[in-house]
């Protein structure tokens, strides 16, 4: 039985989806970086202050 091609995006739709995907990726990457930097800033010098 021949399979239907499913949803085929137009060139414009694919372009718009790519724009959303890139933005979402950048935002998520930015959040990871932000949480890392904030964590380091909140810990400050205490990051080294632990029992050996």
């Amino acid at each position, binding site marked *: 039985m021949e399979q239907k091609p499913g*949803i085929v995006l*137009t060139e414009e739709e694919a372009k718009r989806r790519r724009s*959303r995907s890139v*933005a*979402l990726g950048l935002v998520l990457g930015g959040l990871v970086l*932000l949480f890392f930097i*904030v964590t380091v800033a909140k810990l400050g010098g205490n990051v080294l202050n632990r029992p050996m």
Partner: protein
Amino acid sequence: MSAVSDSIVQDSIGQSQSGLSNGTAGDFFALLKPRVMSLVVFTALVGMMLAPHVNPVIGFAALLAIAVGAGASGCLNMWYDADIDALMRRTVKRPIPAGKVTRDEALGFGLTLSIGSVVTLGLITNWVAAGLLAFTIFFYVVIYSMWLKRATAQNIVIGGAAGAFPPMIGYAAVTGTVSIETVVLFAIIFLWTPPHFWALALVKSDDYRRAGIPMLPVVAGDDHTRLQILIYTLIVVPVAMLPYAMGFAGLPYAVTASVTGVMMLVLAWRIFTRREGEAARKAAFGMFGFSILYLFLLYAVLLAEFMVGHDRVAALGAFAARFLTGAAS
């Protein structure tokens, strides 16, 4: 209409035939009302700098969370007001009425950012600031957009509180509390909002009438609006002097607030007296434009004073005055 925009509005709900979203990243960003967001960041920064000992990293992250929270409330406002936005020339090109983003997408986007920004601010700073941000979003979306905007001519008077909270949130993000100084910063924006928006409403009253929004010029008439603009300007100008009177702003701020305050009064008087034709229109636009500059200058001088100290700003001002008078002579 181009083929692209034809395909965008094809089913009038902003979704393509494939069922995928039609919005670009830019369309979603436009939902956040970037211009309002930048004003919120600016005023929140002033509130933050009022506090002693701001950790720059935490401060930056807090500002980001406040900005996203403000954007989220703008997004939820566009979700709720999509029907009336489609009727007004000023708002018809917004992403939802333009068919680029669906209402459901805007709702999901706005709620996600609301919760995300409040939780992030709470975890990074404290829950007083996060609670204030949550209340601001609630106030703007539920109290203003859903209730007051379509119900009373006092909509922007009470709703103005939402725009006035950011300095308080900024200060709370650093200190975990609010102070009388932040109440004054709140009051300045709160009292500035009515004359600012009513000046615009005088010019755009046809838009509001078509959409059935009971803005003051639509309900009470242009002349009564002019009187109200004058009254609120008479109140906000002395209130804007309070930072100096209370000692948390210096002479540069006092001079700026005095000079720009007098100009605000002149423009409000012009609106009150010029009631016909092009002169009335120009007076309203003049007030609207200058009121933005007025608030910006007040907060910019405050920010400069908090960051580099009253004395240095005063010395810089004196130098600039000498330079200008020297150049003029």
